[in-house]
């Protein structure tokens, strides 16, 4: 029982990342009808927003303290981050909480990147075949990835979670299991809550605001909305930016779990596409549900007990599920009938 609970928890945080990326992919597909192979790159860009902020706040000044000496007889070097020098305690706070603070930095950046991408490139591809859309966004993903590689190098850059939440929670004790059986890092709990909040925000935006209502109307029947005198194109551009922000924030918060490197986007992209397909192309709740489900499935498949029966199942389970779903129920778990079924 406790092992099962642990696997579910372990799967959920990865699943949450899949769900967030897949949500953005579905939003873009539902509104613009574009298959965005560069969405993984947006996730990666978000992660590198956190890296950039981490680097900025950690710029250090070195002062020599002549009163103390090291065992080698040289004066002790005291390194203090510049922000701490400037802002005192608030600066120290910024250094400590650089990852959560990156969210504030990432939102405008990702929104800007998303809007530029849509206006500068994607808008010319609405009428082109899906193959062309896949190809051009694939090329864009390579370009973004290589720029990041040139800028930050090829090695993963670990980002630390704030000390306050660096430890692990012994969740099992709360639920009456033996201590030490179900241990879960605080940061992953935060990631789960954050994802839930973000997904909730997106759905609330679409469901309860007038703007979101118009967007949903545009998804259902673009022409009619246009005939009503609404500039639906502009709103779809904003939705693209929103999808970029969602992917970016997923990336920012994921950095303490997985040190970001330049090809993390590609790794997540392939899986997120599978998630979209399993959930149903164009279905937002489907994307979220399938993301969490596949994350948990993957985590179960990597249990030793399962691997002993079916060796290698952890490597292929997600793809296997996708193949089965596509053959048995091509519209996906929650897809609407008739959307992209052939």
């Amino acid at each position: 029982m406790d092992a099962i609970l642990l696997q579910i928890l372990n799967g959920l945080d990865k699943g949450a990342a899949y769900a967030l990326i897949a949500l953005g992919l579905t939003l873009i597909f539902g509104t613009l009808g574009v298959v965005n192979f560069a969405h993984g790159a947006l996730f990666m860009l978000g992660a590198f927003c956190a890296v950039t902020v981490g680097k900025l706040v950690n710029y250090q000044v070195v002062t020599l303290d002549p009163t103390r000496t090291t065992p080698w007889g040289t004066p002790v070097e005291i390194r203090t981050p510049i922000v701490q020098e400037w802002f005192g305690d608030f600066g120290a706070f910024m250094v400590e909480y650089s990852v959560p603070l990156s969210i504030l930095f990432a939102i405008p950046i990702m929104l800007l990147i998303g809007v530029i991408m849509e206006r500068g490139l994607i808008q010319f591809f609405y009428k082109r075949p899906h193959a062309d859309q896949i190809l051009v966004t694939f090329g864009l993903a390579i370009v973004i990835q290589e720029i990041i590689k040139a800028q930050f190098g090829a090695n993963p850059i670990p980002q630390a979670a704030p000390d306050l939440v660096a430890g692990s929670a012994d969740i099992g004790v709360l639920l009456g299991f033996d201590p030490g059986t179900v241990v879960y890092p605080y940061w992953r709990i935060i990631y789960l809550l954050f994802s839930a909040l973000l997904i909730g925000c997106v759905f609330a935006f679409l469901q309860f605001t007038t703007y979101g209502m118009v967007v949903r109307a545009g998804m259902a029947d673009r022409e009619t909305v246009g005939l009503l005198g609404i500039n639906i194109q502009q709103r779809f551009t904003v939705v693209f930016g929103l999808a970029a922000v969602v992917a970016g924030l997923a990336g920012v918060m994921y950095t303490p779990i997985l040190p970001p490197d330049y090809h993390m986007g590609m790794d997540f992209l392939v899986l997120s596409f599978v998630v979209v397909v399993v959930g149903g192309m164009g279905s937002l709740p489907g994307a979220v549900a399938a993301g969490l489900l596949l994350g948990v499935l993957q985590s179960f498949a990597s249990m030793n007990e399962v691997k002993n029966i079916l060796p290698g199942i952890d490597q292929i389970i997600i793809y296997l599920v996708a193949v089965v779903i596509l053959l048995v129920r091509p519209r996906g778990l929650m897809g609407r009938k008739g959307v992209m079924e052939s």
Partner: protein
Amino acid sequence: MSQNLGKIRSPLDMEPLAIEVHDVESASRSRSARNDLILICVFSAVVLASPWLLAPFGAAYPDLLQRFCIFGIFAIGFNIMFGLTGYLSFGHAAFLGIGSYAAVWSFKLLTMNVIPAVMFGVLCAGLFSALIGYVCLRRAGIYFSILTLAFAQMSYNLAYSVLTPITNGETGLQLTLNDSRVLDAASGIDPTSSLPVTNLFGMKMSGYPGFYLCAIVLIISFYISIRIFRSPFGMMLRGIKTNQNRMSYTGINTRPYLLAAFVVSGMYAGLAGSLMAVTDPLAGAERMQWTASGEVVLMTILGGAGTLLGPVLGAGVIKYFENIFSSFNAQTLHSAFSFLPDGLAEFMVTITHPFVGEGWHLTLGVLFMLIVIFLPGGLMEGAQRIGNMFSGSGGKSEAESPAEQTKPAE
């Protein structure tokens, strides 16, 4: 509404259209056949003479020339699927990898002769592509792309983890001294103290003999692809690309044609993979990764999907520039721009530096995006446009040779 009407009426429209196409076809058949003969002759001459032709470009060494040929074969095969039917497969590298593994196993177990290895590799790739194709071709469009991608990733992950006894995991499958090599042992070739070299009936396949083997295989593959393009089968595939619904309305079951095309292109990939093993008997799982599949897509698009020469051209261009650009560094850039005034030279070096050496993929990505955006028909379309510009009117030359080349942008 009007669209629906058009679709319903289309089977009726089909008949006069078909006759018209047939007329044009028969009228130009003899000329088309002669053109093909010229094309294959020129192609063979260029390929066989490439050690001399490419010498001024610094590309005339067997290792690189072999890579041109092998990726040319790979791209030709991919083009039979993508160029003719429009089905974009993102998993072709899996067949390349399977071909490589099969060929290396043949070297390990049977003989160092390349003929059984290539046959074995093509056969295995064909079998796998039939299996995978049968499943994937139940869906079209993006779903097909994602399904093939899923299968390729599955093969890659399995090759890395569970199938280690067959694939030797991360190290890669390679020859060892105590391989059995049944046929070699039976025919009395002594196991030597050093690792044996792949051979074709005693001729060692390293250096230029290896290149000429690849070149001849490339020419044969190119010939087969011409035959496929010109055959009724090829016309059928193009029909599927243009309008699959219409094909179904006329009572044709398109799936067997698609599957046949998929298997053929999978076998081409297997052929390329086994040739890779011939030139260097080592097979690793990274050949199956989806970025490798992406590479062949790039080659085909860059050259021109749906054209005969395009994929080979694309493969050559990409492999050539990969070789040139990735060897550049700041030093070579400085000497290249040394004719400019100092400040300007410095500026140019700073600008171009991220695009060469390690950053070669950046150049590739940018180039690829530009091609997809501005020149969807690839280099072949570009050549055609330039040709039309010189010949005066654009429409005239197209009317002259309606059946000769596919229109790349279709």
